[in-house]
């Protein structure tokens, strides 16, 4: 198939998946809508859908709709952790490693960064950097466990990483209870981070007036660029991708398959951990997570939507953050529970991952291309024949 048709197919397929998800959402909203008549329910649904689709960046009121910078800033802020977990999952899934440890990884990174931010005074700037690197490195090292067990003993990295998520969570909870809690507070939380460690807000920029949006978004964008180059412009990313496509081919070509598989998971761990640190230092005054945050699972959705390609991660993360914000808006203004996002996300995920979804359409494009190619070949051979005469 031609490249252009590939792209057209991907767009049509993605759009269909999103349409189906939105239809499901609409149906659910309609069923739950207040109102006695069909028409009434319909108008409530329409109102809610408007909030979902334009609410994330516009304020809707009687006089019309108006751009709202703060909301857009919230959407960007929500992208920070999922860009990191999304990148983390991309690198591991691209090597065909179903490591689901980004969930525990982001929590571990956040916790380690928090500890460094509280107990290791350093100059401003350097402090944040050390915190984030510490979070990333420790998480990367922890990912050695599933990676090495997979390579050396063929233990399922999926089960192993799922177990690690829980071990990480409980150990952090234990450490919080025993060693690091600020006993003066009612809720279990650490002492506040030192000011030198905090990631400043991006509030100087005139339209981004959200207090939640930190410089973390800039770091996230840098991470995307670095990972994009890493995966598509470096020998390591190249090897990761080739191993993911055909491991026997990679081995025969002379690649160090075991090493690269381990590498992909260390990098995946590092990204999740660093993302945790950035989220923590940019958004919270102290560490108070008492459960796994769910960003790892969203990261998997991001990676699936992005087709494991880092360059598409911001787009996918933006899309999901936008939908999330839309659901929040619906909850506020249209009284639709915000957790609708989970169902919409799940449906989109399923249709994106379904290999044969619209396969007939794809087949028709392939056939069309093949026919054109044959016609072109015939034409050129006739031409060649004439020239020979």
């Amino acid at each position, binding site marked *: 198939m031609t490249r252009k048709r590939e792209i057209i197919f991907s767009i049509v397929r993605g759009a269909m998946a999103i349409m189906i998800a939105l239809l499901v959402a609409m149906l659910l909203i309609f069923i*739950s809508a207040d109102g006695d008549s069909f028409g009434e329910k319909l108008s409530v649904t329409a109102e809610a859908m408007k909030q979902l689709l334009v609410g994330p960046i516009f304020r809707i009121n009687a006089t019309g709709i108006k751009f709202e910078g703060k909301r857009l800033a919230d959407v960007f802020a929500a992208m920070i952790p999922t860009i990191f977990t999304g990148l983390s999952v991309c690198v591991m899934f691209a090597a065909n490693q179903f490591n689901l440890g980004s969930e525990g990884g982001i929590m571990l990174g956040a916790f380690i960064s928090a500890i460094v931010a509280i107990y290791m005074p350093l100059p401003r700037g350097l402090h944040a950097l050390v915190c984030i690197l510490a979070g990333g490195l420790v998480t990367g090292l922890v990912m050695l466990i599933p990676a090495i067990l997979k390579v050396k*003993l063929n233990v*399922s990295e999926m089960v*192993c990483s799922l177990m690690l998520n829980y071990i990480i969570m409980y150990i952090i909870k234990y450490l919080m209870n025993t060693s690091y809690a600020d006993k003066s507070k009612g809720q279990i939380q650490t002492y506040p981070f030192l000011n030198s460690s905090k990631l400043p807000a991006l509030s100087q920029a005139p339209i981004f007036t959200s207090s939640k949006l930190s410089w973390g978004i800039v770091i996230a964008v840098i991470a995307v660029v670095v990972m994009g180059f890493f995966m598509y412009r470096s020998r390591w990313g190249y090897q990761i991708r080739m191993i993911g496509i055909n491991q026997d081919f990679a081995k025969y070509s002379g690649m160090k398959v075991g090493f690269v598989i381990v590498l992909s998971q260390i990098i995946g761990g590092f990204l999740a951990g660093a993302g945790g640190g950035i989220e923590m230092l940019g958004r919270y005054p102290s560490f108070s997570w008492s459960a796994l945050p769910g960003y790892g699972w969203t990261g998997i*959705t991001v990676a699936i939507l992005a087709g494991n390609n880092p360059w598409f991660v911001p787009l996918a993360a933006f899309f999901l953050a936008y939908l999330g914000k839309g659901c929040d808006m619906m909850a506020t203004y249209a009284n639709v529970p915000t957790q*609708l*996002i989970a*169902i919409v*996300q799940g449906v989109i995920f399923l249709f994106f991952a379904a290999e*044969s979804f619209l396969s007939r359409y794809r087949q028709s494009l392939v056939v069309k291309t093949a026919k054109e190619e044959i016609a072109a070949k015939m034409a050129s051979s006739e031409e060649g024949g004439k020239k020979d005469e």
Partner: protein
Amino acid sequence: MSNLLSNILSPGFFFSIFRISAPILYATLAAIVVEKAGFANIGLEGLMMFSALFGSLASYYAGSWVVGFLTAVIVGVVMSLVMGFFAFQLQTDIILVGIAINLMGSGGTLFLCKIITDITEGKAMASTTGLVTSGICIPNISIPLIKDIPFIGEVISGHSLLTYLAFLVCILTSIMLYRTSLGLNIRAVGENSNAAASVGVSVLKIKYIAIGFSGLMSGFGGAFMSMSYAQGWSQDMVAGRGFIALAAQAMGGGECLGGMLSSLLFGFAQALGIKFSAVGLDSNLASPIPYAITIISLAIFGFVRINRAKKPKVAA
């Protein structure tokens, strides 16, 4: 420490092991059967969440735990068949289907709970614990004669109907797998689907049956969670039991008896965690133990397997 020991040696502690193990055992049996059929269902967590929610709601509306239980089971089976449709017909990676179901299972159930209660009760509720009363929960059963035996009676008698059923189902599953033609077909499909297909066994049908069975078990487990373990459904109440089951399946060597023992081990660790907090220790210290044991035992299995493969060939 002696305080902890006396707490542990009480009948109440052993009673709680069985109670905690039951839902894990259901999910483990689900994991075992799909694994025998040659794939993995990591969506058990989400399936149980849906079953738990709808089970508790149905039992409240009908005022009958039987209706609730059946609803939970039906929801589990139908959703698992939908998973099968995506995996087998639309060729979605089964692991991704599982992840999608889990995504929906955690937030989506809360959404559904809110909109359904909003319609029926007039206000959106974040859990069904306010609706489900002990009268519409799955009944506990005290066993005559046995209940009077000191210690043992206290441990064995008085459990929920579904706790007993879990262990019974475990035996039945084992019989199904090893004594019936369905079980034979499941194992054949999982091991060599070409061989099964070559003698006229429908591989697709068997796969649907296996994933449907996992939905059935998730239904049992979900019903137990919201109608016996707790009174009513609340968010994320399954709390990783669907994942633990995957570990219990692997740790138990993929067999029912092993799976049951692994489930009991997880139950033991959680019960221990509860006792830890009872005596002022931190339960978070006991809770990760089963997960760590899983990783270690998987590593040991892997080591043994690799070394066995390396053994020199016997001369002809």
